[in-house]
């Protein structure tokens, strides 16, 4: 029982990390309707950014993630404006390949600039985000706990933004029906740029929150990106709460399958869940998305 509880905690905490990565993806996926294969590389850039800010200015990653949010926002906006926007009316495969191209270019740019070396933020003198919290015999990684909490806060903030601000409502309208929103006078292009920026900006936060646990290297994005796709589809296209729950589910599945089945088969388990969801419930577990559209 104790082991089960610990596995559950580990899974939930891992889920928090997955969530912070997936929130941005579901925003982009749900609103702009583009599968951003460069999402992992955006994460890599954010992680390098946080690392550099820590190295140069001694900023704690949790501080560095704030400027990183805006930098990533800018990066996302530029990507949307100059790469996705011209392709909005193109077919899905064209859009996918544009993002694949960006992904390849960025990953190799990372290799050119930083080399293949693995860098990790020096947390030895940091107080926040390190160490463990023990509850009886159960342990929780403080950094992961922080990630978990921030991802909940982030979802709350985005929720509020989408529901109660004019811009947020315009974003939701655009997500539901692009042409109708256009007719209603919404500047769809601008909305998309903001949405993409927001999605990328979330990764800026992810970069900071993950720094204490994960080192950065050029291919780090590929470690997370497929899982993020699974989570977003599982949770339902564009659904923030869905993405969060999806992330927790995948985290727990990862943890439990790793223990009770086999560590090397846990991906098989969650990819199988993913395929089953796509086939039997393409709208996702929680979303009102339109998977089979």
């Amino acid at each position: 029982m104790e082991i089960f509880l610990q596995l559950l905690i580990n899974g939930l905490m891992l889920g928090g990390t997955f969530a912070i990565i997936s929130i941005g993806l579901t925003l982009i996926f749900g609103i702009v309707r583009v599968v951003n294969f460069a999402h992992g590389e955006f994460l890599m850039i954010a992680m390098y950014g946080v690392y550099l800010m820590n190295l140069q200015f001694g900023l704690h990653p949790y501080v560095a993630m704030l400027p990183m949010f805006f930098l990533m926002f800018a990066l996302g906006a530029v990507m949307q404006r100059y790469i996705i926007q011209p392709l909005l009316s193109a077919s899905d495969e064209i859009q996918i390949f544009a993002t694949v191209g960006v992904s390849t270019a960025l990953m190799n740019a990372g290799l050119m600039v930083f080399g293949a070396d693995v860098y990790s933020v020096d947390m030895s003198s940091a107080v926040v985000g390190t160490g463990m919290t023990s509850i009886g015999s159960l342990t929780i990684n403080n950094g992961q706990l922080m990630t978990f909490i921030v991802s909940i806060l982030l979802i709350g903030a985005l929720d509020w933004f989408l529901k109660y601000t004019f811009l947020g409502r315009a974003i939701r309208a655009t997500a539901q029906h692009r042409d109708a929103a256009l007719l209603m006078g919404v500047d769809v292009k601008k909305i998309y740029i903001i949405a993409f920026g927001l999605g990328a900006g979330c990764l800026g936060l992810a970069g900071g929150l993950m720094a204490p646990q994960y080192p950065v290297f050029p291919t780090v994005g590929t470690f997370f990106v497929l899982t993020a796709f699974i989570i977003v589809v599982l949770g339902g296209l564009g659904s923030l709460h869905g993405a969060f729950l999806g992330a927790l589910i995948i985290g727990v599945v990862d943890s439990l399958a790793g223990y009770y089945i086999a560590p090397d088969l846990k991906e098989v388990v969650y990819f199988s869940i993913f395929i089953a969801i796509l086939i039997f419930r393409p709208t996702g577990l929680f979303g009102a998305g339109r998977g089979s559209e």
Partner: protein
Amino acid sequence: MKKYVSKIKGGAVAAVALTMSFSAMADINVGALYPFSGGLALLGNESFRGLEIAIEERNANGGLRGEQIKLVKSDAVDAGQAVGAARKLTSIEGVDVIFGSFSSSISFAATQVAELAAVPYFELGAISDNITDRNMKYVFRSNPTAKNFAEGTIDAIFKVVAPTYGVDAKDLKVAIIHEDALYGTTVSQFQKDIAKEKGLNVVQTLPYSAKAVDLSSLVLRLKGAGADVVLQTSYQNDTTLFFRQMREAGFKPKALIGAGGGYSMKDTVKVVGEKNMEGVLDVDFAQYLMNEAGAPGIKEFQATYKERYGEEPRSGHSLINYSGAKIFLDALEKAASLKADDVREAVMAIDLPIGSTAAGIGAKMNENGQNIRANAAIMQWQDGELKTVYPEAAAVAAPKFPQHP
């Protein structure tokens, strides 16, 4: 059906490729085939540096057979590219020999091309045993293989862990964990076989993906099984992840034994932290803290490396590549000509005792071209340094475990 555009373009490209073959024909051309990009780039590059230093050293001392050596770099990240790279080296660049390759799958593909082109191929780092099991005449390997690694890790239990703790090795609960790609699988397979043969009590064998972002459940399984000794074959990221989560779960086995890869890397210590690596054993090509007596030239190499690249070696891959390259360059110097058959004759004539090279290995090739005097050394992380603890001739420190009072 309008293919003519393509044909013209294709022709142009190939024509350019052709003109390339008429350039760069001075000196002795030597191919260097490694993964310089992609996921294996770090260790591929580190391996290459060893070769580069060996060649530069040779050039500074008058070159090979009186001529300067020109190193032709060729990047390959997978088998398909390796075939292309080897083809290019053997035909367009017209290299006399090829050095490579760090990755076993690259080596498999490239050696086969070189063999058919009758260009000697010197493998300095890939560890899959059957690379040299394919009856090739011109493929030679200086470095230890996966089997040597596995033997080393099992030896470490018998010769280092058990004596230090003063227990019988067969009473120890051993767990084998490994990344599930080629490297980890190959080594762990031998570990399982040898452990069984020697009567060790293996309680868990767990493969996992090197791309895993969470190993906490694996750690809990090891903890639940009460493993005393964990044998891990891993790259860097999974090593650091494992160490972090082991700490979080409060899992403290008597000994951790790595088979090179992530365990040998300075970067790993940087990420994991010195005190967390204290006492961890590592079986690998010999590293930098060896007794000079057992590894002549290691200090100079280290100094040259630092001067050349402005940093400490990132792992032992440069050293083993350096030593291997030197062994083969010596043979090339002595060969009657650079024709493949003369090279083979010269290589087969090599006879260096163990402990006579910078990496501590000796050199004597068997019929298949595999070096039978290449053993992996057993090392231990002590105070942030990887120190050789076994065999005694090369040892610079006695093994000690923080868990053992």
